[in-house]
């Protein structure tokens, strides 16, 4: 065997074995899709309560940089968007475009929130001006407390920091304190990670950060559902049965709702928008019935949109699937559909209000 042949054999074998080795490591250990995303979901799950009823995630940086978002930015009231962002930045010191990497939020229907309706918390990862944020919150009446060594900025009640316009009336809406006020808090859990939301859940996030314990990341059922959502840059999942039980709906309404236990939405925003809406029914029979209902709605939608090309392509992208207890509806909307929808909506937006 000549030297040239020997080198060739070595290089070929090296490519094969390095490839197989890398694949094998990835198979057993798993390669994180980002530095903060493990195979069990985003790292922030460790700071969310294990009893969370709804969890949502958004890779803000990816979404902001997506082609779809850039198209929206150019086509739909760009000046208003710019102004809104500047206003937000002046108030909080946060530039949504560049400062926030991703957000993970949760709603816990069992937590003590306002009027017993549960509570929520959002964990945002990014680059934040702590001093400016704290100063701005204090300007709006917030107090700074110490909670397990962390600075907890507590606002007495949840109130928007600036007046909310009420329809055509330019006068600010008077702030009416809720009957059971739930305090709103913000805390810098660790460098680059801020928790904001209900004080109860922000304190719980600090508890979990300081002492560990049962969290969303240790809830195996929840984590198994989160794993299935990997690959999307926005997603949400929740327990429909818990939400329904807490919603105290009238029997006549509750009986009409499909018996869904888990629901999830996984979306990918890039050049277009791909999404997969999944629901896990109580049993196979319920799932079959739900599939039949959705199939019926799809057929109706296709019939209704046959003469409207801007909606037709969107409806055609809807695909129903699922086996056993699962019902899934996927949609794949190319950016051209948004252009068509924007063009269809433009005359209505341009029309002066009566």
């Amino acid at each position, binding site marked *: 065997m000549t030297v040239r042949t020997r080198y060739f054999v070595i290089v070929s074998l090296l490519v094969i074995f390095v490839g197989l080795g*890398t*694949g094998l490591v990835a198979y057993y250990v798993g390669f994180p899709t980002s530095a903060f995303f493990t195979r069990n979901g985003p790292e922030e799950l460790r700071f969310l309560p294990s009893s969370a009823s709804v969890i949502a995630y958004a890779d803000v940086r990816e979404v902001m940089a997506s082609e779809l978002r850039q198209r929206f930015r150019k086509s739909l009231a760009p000046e208003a968007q710019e102004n809104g962002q500047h206003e937000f930045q002046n108030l909080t010191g946060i530039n949504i475009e560049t400062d926030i990497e991703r957000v993970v939020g949760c709603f816990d229907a069992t937590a003590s929130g306002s009027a017993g309706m549960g509570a929520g918390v959002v964990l945002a990862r990014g680059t934040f001006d702590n001093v400016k944020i704290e100063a701005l919150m204090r300007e709006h009446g917030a107090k700074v407390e110490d909670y397990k060594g962390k600075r907890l900025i507590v606002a007495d009640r949840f109130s928007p920091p600036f007046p909310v316009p009420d329809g055509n009336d330019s006068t600010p809406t008077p702030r009416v304190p809720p009957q059971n006020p739930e305090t709103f808090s913000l805390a810098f859990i660790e460098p680059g990670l801020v928790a904001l939301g209900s004080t109860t859940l922000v304190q719980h996030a600090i508890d979990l950060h300081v002492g560990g314990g049962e969290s969303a990341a240790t809830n195996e059922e929840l984590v198994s559902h989160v794993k299935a959502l990997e690959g999307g840059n926005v997603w949400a999942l929740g327990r429909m049965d818990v939400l329904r039980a807490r919603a105290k709906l009238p029997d006549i309404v509750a009986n009409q709702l499909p018996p869904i236990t888990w629901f999830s939405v996984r979306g990918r925003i890039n050049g277009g928008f791909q999404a997969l809406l999944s629901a896990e029914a109580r049993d196979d029979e319920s799932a079959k019935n739900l599939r039949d209902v959705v199939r019926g709605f799809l057929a109706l939608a296709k019939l209704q949109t046959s003469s409207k090309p801007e909606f037709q392509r969107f409806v055609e992208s809807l695909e129903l699937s699922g086996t056993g207890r699962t019902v899934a509806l996927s949609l794949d909307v190319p950016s051209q559909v948004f252009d068509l929808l924007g063009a269809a909506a433009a005359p209505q937006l341009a029309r002066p209000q009566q």
Partner: protein
Amino acid sequence: MNASLLRPALRVFDFSLGQMLWSRRSVLLGLLVGVPVVLAAVVRLFAASNQLPVINGAGLTGPTLFGILIWMLFVRFIVPVLGVFYGTSLIADEVDDKTITYLFTRPVRRSAVLLGKYLAYLACVVLLVLPSVVVVYFLVVPIGGHIGESFPSLAADLGMLAIGLAAYGALFAFVGARLKRPLITGLVFAFGWETTVLLIPGYLKRLSVAYYLQALVPHAMPQDSTINVLLQAFQDQPSVLVSLIYLFIIVGVSLWLAGRAVETREYVLEQ
């Protein structure tokens, strides 16, 4: 396999491997295995700024595309082409170059020469095709997929391609050793017979290599329609174990027949 066959076969393998790798035929081989890599690189670049198209209503992802490339390019084209061109030339090239006499006058069994050349063919094509598949995998699968999750299919594909190359090579080595114009027969078999019988219902498809290789391919075209699901459910496909047994039988029997043909046939060199 006794030492009198294996030792000279390894000697023949040693010098034949270099001969095969740096021959003009290897340019064709390089082009063949380079095309999927270039294609995968283009797809990767395209996917960086666009979304992959939808086929049969189902979104195309990296792992699905990898499956399509493996099935359409490697299994159905590259592997049979390599088998035909290299397999049929193992002995035929020596006859055409009138150098077969030098090999057959050596104090070794003729079948050892064939075996050594077959092993050289196998090493040559495996060392070129498998790295190409690995590169394609790492270029394509991360598009909407995960390297780790799809790894079992990569391992299965590499094994399947190696067995496919061995089976086609052995079969066409026999054709090359037995027939006078082996290339035409090989091409007709690979792209005429094999393609046709797979479409004909009944047992005829069992007389093809592709039928058994197909059962080892863990990929499918993206599909979501009920008809496609039903077609797949009713598709006559042997189990993996049965396919492996038949493929090893094809390799063994073909090599044995090729060895016998080389031992008994009188090669007349044209002046």
